[in-house]
């Protein structure tokens, strides 16, 4: 799209879904479907794991925690 900022990308969604979202945001503070979709997806992306996995930390998170505990002298 012309004039699209370099750090933005275009996502495609079915038109009926777009229309539904447009109805949903009526009367709210969201100024556009884009803004609303970004809000929802951003929130979803902060919890990327399945219900099973969400109860546990990733190996990287575990090691990061262990490393900090070692640095502080707890381990």
């Amino acid at each position, binding site marked *: 799209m012309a004039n699209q900022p370099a750090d933005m990308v275009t996502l495609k969604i079915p038109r009926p879904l777009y229309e539904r979202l447009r109805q949903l945001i009526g009367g709210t503070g969201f100024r556009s479907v884009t803004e609303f979709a970004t*809000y929802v997806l951003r*929130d979803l992306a902060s919890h990327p794991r399945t219900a099973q996995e969400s109860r546990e930390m990733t190996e990287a*998170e575990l090691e990061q*925690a*262990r490393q900090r*505990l070692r640095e502080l002298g707890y381990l």
Partner: protein
Amino acid sequence: MIPPHGGKLVNRVVSGEERDHLARDAQLLPRLQLNQRELADLEMIATGAMSPLEGFMDEANYRNVVDSVRLANGLVWAIPVVLSAKAEEDRKLRSGDRVALTDDAGRVLAVLEVAGCYQVDHEYEAQMVLRTTDEGHPGVQYLGSISPWYVGGTVHLVRRPEHTDFLRYRLDPKETRVLFEERGWKRIVAFQTRNPIHRAHEYLQKCALEICDGLLIHPLVGETKSDDIPAEVRMRCYEELIEKYYPKDRVVLSVFPAAMRYGGPREAIFHALVRKNYGCTHFIVGRDHAGVGNYYGSYDAHAIFGEFEPEDIAITPLFFDHAFYCRVCGNMATTKTCPHGSDDHVVLSGTKVRELLAKGELPPAEFTRPEVGRVLAEATRRS
């Protein structure tokens, strides 16, 4: 490992490129500055200490908590965790708006995805949560100092609040959980305090440690009332005590960043649930837990746990009565385990302790360890 409250350890800390993007976006957003309590709450929400909370309470959750000690989804929660409006324009915030949350230096710490703004009745909140509307109560004073308009919504933390103190002791819930696992601890008892640890507290902790694998000494280091002993003095007391009198392989000292509400019974529930999020399975509830003055009965904070099914709290409270040294028994005891009268007990009021320290005298060793007494005496001299 005990599950967090609600089943999942919340993580609202944004990292990597997403953090950079959001931090850039946030520079263009309207700003809302956090007070000290809100700063601490933000950090605890983001790191999961307040699981299942994902942000500052919206109206539905706030009203449910105030009225029925539960969130809108039915989970037990005792204390409102709210963000107060700071300016007239904050009241106009609507669902879907985004606001940059800042500290008092103007640093953007988080983006709040607004769920809505709502007006509350502080007198009602005080009566329900603090059980008093008396303006001498520090919690009531706090409510009187903030707007009756609250802004609710989820948070995305892009920058941790700046800390210059207790850096070695600032562990997030995921870190305490990993620590307990690494040490092989299954039963971990937490001790909350905003005071130095005297012999009576030490006794409760060690009784609890006899039936648990490890002890988390978790002093509150957020905002307290002006006549409470400063956190840095208390931390020196805890360090001295642990060094000489505690088995170091059984004890973890880490700080609890929350502000004090002085909410007595409700705050006891709050303290217990948050320590569950830190990975603790047991929680010590002593006499007049989180109390102040004479606003609560000595054991109101024990009784409130009986209003819930154990599985709704899911961290085991360990109730202790008033503890003291008994000269006849020759040991520490409580009113439950000592048959002797108060004349045989070494008990000092806070006023008496302050008088002794001001004169450069240490309280008796049956009341407080000399090492703790010396730290307090030195702090009194310098104040």
